[in-house]
């Protein structure tokens, strides 16, 4: 079935979004520290993505927020009230899981009604609200089906309706799209964003897919080893990463040897502004975005000789990787009409955009 079924918006409750704060949250698993003092504040209705590689603590942070994991120290505040010791079922949250979590013995409508049933909402009212929630995700006609009769995308839509039908103060999404195919992922993430914006609900979205995070979130928190490395709007993270890890994780970068000289990075003779903290003079690895490199002619100022090692057609543009004289490989995004062959000689030009750099061992 198509995933672009007509949808309608569920009635938003006034003040449905809550302020959420994590203050110095620490979580240990034995000797391993999964969360090393997380501080995070979310405004009502804000959509925040927790982004990071596997094992960085993003899911642990989400589960701590939900109450499915206890924390060792720190506090978790929802609308100013510390809920760190409040059981999950009393936190007034909605959650969508990575794996399909619909109750297999219930129909779709019974699944969506479940939260209302647990809250002792009258049968007629809960049927109305569940129907409304299902219509909101475009599955109003699927109420009588069972989970195993739905596609993965449909199951996650039902899970979303089930999480939202109780009008929770906070919506938690634990990689809800990771089991879906690429096209459905994009459609569903847009839909999640639209629904959460319409409802004004504070949302935390865990993902390891930087494109997904940048596409939907108001702000993105990049995590590493149980810490938040940087939090900011997608544009801030992309344009001004605070360190090489963030630069490397958010967006595509090429690692090119260079040297810090007088607070600037010199790469193949071109002086580029340095992002982040000032660094002492010395050899570094500069992280250069593909859009900051352009194809050039041999007589262009600062032209760098290179040869093509790979080229990929990406639809609206083409990404080509070039081997430089120092043995490093640099990626360039360019017009699809330029279609270099592997082994072709070429010249590149670096744009004077700020770059992140890490000391070279």
């Amino acid at each position, binding site marked *: 079935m198509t995933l672009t079924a007509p949808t309608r918006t569920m009635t938003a409750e006034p003040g449905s979004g809550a302020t959420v704060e994590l203050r110095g949250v620490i979580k240990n698993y034995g000797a391993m520290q999964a969360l090393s003092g997380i501080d995070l504040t979310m405004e009502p209705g804000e959509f925040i993505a927790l982004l990071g590689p596997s094992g960085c603590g993003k899911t642990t942070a989400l589960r701590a927020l939900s109450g499915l994991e206890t924390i060792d120290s720190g506090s978790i505040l929802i609308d100013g009230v510390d809920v760190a010791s409040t059981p999950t*079922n009393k936190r007034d949250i909605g959650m969508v*899981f990575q794996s399909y979590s619909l109750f297999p013995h219930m129909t779709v409508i019974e699944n969506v009604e479940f939260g209302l049933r*647990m809250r002792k909402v009258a049968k007629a009212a809960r049927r109305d609200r569940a129907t409304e929630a299902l219509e909101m995700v475009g599955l109003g006609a699927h109420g009588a089906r069972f989970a195993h009769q739905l596609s993965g995308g449909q199951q996650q839509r039902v899970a979303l309706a089930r999480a939202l039908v109780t009008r929770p103060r906070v919506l938690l999404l634990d990689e809800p799209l990771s089991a879906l195919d690429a096209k459905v992922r994009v459609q569903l993430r847009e839909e999640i964003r639209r629904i959460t914006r319409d409802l004004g609900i504070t949302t935390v979205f865990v993902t390891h897919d930087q494109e997904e995070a940048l596409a939907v979130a108001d702000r993105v928190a990049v995590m590493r080893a149980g810490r938040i490395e940087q939090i900011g709007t997608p544009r801030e993270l992309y344009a001004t990463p605070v360190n090489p890890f963030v630069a490397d994780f958010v967006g595509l970068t090429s690692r090119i040897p260079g040297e810090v000289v007088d607070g600037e990075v010199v790469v193949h003779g071109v002086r580029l502004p340095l992002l982040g903290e000032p660094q002492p003079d010395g050899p570094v690895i500069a992280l250069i975005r593909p859009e900051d490199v352009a194809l050039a002619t041999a007589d262009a100022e600062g032209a760098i000789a290179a040869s093509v090692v790979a080229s990929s057609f990406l639809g609206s543009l083409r990404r080509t990787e070039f081997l430089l004289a120092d043995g490093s490989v640099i990626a360039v995004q360019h017009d699809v009409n330029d279609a270099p062959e592997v082994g072709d000689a070429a010249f590149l030009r670096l744009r004077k955009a700020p770059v992140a750099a890490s000391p070279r061992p």
Partner: protein
Amino acid sequence: MNPSKTTRWLILGVVGVVFAFPIFAMIEFTFRDGLSGGHTLDHWTGLFTEDAARTYRNLFTGIGNSLLLAVVTVGIVLVVLLPTMILVHLQFPKLKRVLEFVCIIPITVPAIVLVVGLAPVYSVVVQVAGGSIWTLAFAYGITVLPYAYRAIQANLDAVDVVTLSEAGRTLSANWGRVLWHVLLPNLKRGVLAASFISVAVVLGEFTIASLLNRVNLQTALLQVGQSDPYVAIIFALLALLFAFVLLLSIGRLGRTRRTGSES
């Protein structure tokens, strides 16, 4: 490579004959008219005569005791084993191996050895709970552990109970409601299988009851068999039929399509 249809039917046929032959022999035996070589319905109709209840009183007592023991044993499985397994699965997964080991042990211990160990325990049990037949269910609760454990564990492994229980909790259900509304409906198959297998094991148990001087179906059948072998075989057949129906029910549950539930 899967065996051909003919091979499958051949294997099924051979196995079927191996199992069916003694059963048919038992059925035929119940219609024998002594050593005359003829057949009669007298042994079956004799069960419905007025003095049958008096004649076979010990047998009926044994049946009643076995049914009571089956109910109490299933109760032990449901009240002790099932919650323990769910708890270990959800909260203490590192203890799964230990629990499995403990539950499998009874299958490696011969009943006679078990009784030697249980005898002093039962001397205490009798002092505390009296000598009622139902106390034997404590021993049967141990003997059915391997079978009940396997049936429930297979179901636990087949269902993502961790995610389902977490989903239930985020939807405002407390642990009790998660157990009742989410987990048990999805573990129904394993729980019923464990219960039915436990009933079948209890109905077929002889050694422990005999050595602890209790009357159950099997000890009563032995006693009746010494005076009236036809009736003993008739009741053995009925017990077999009952166990067969239970096992068929398990198979049927496995094929049953998921259905919805209303509150």
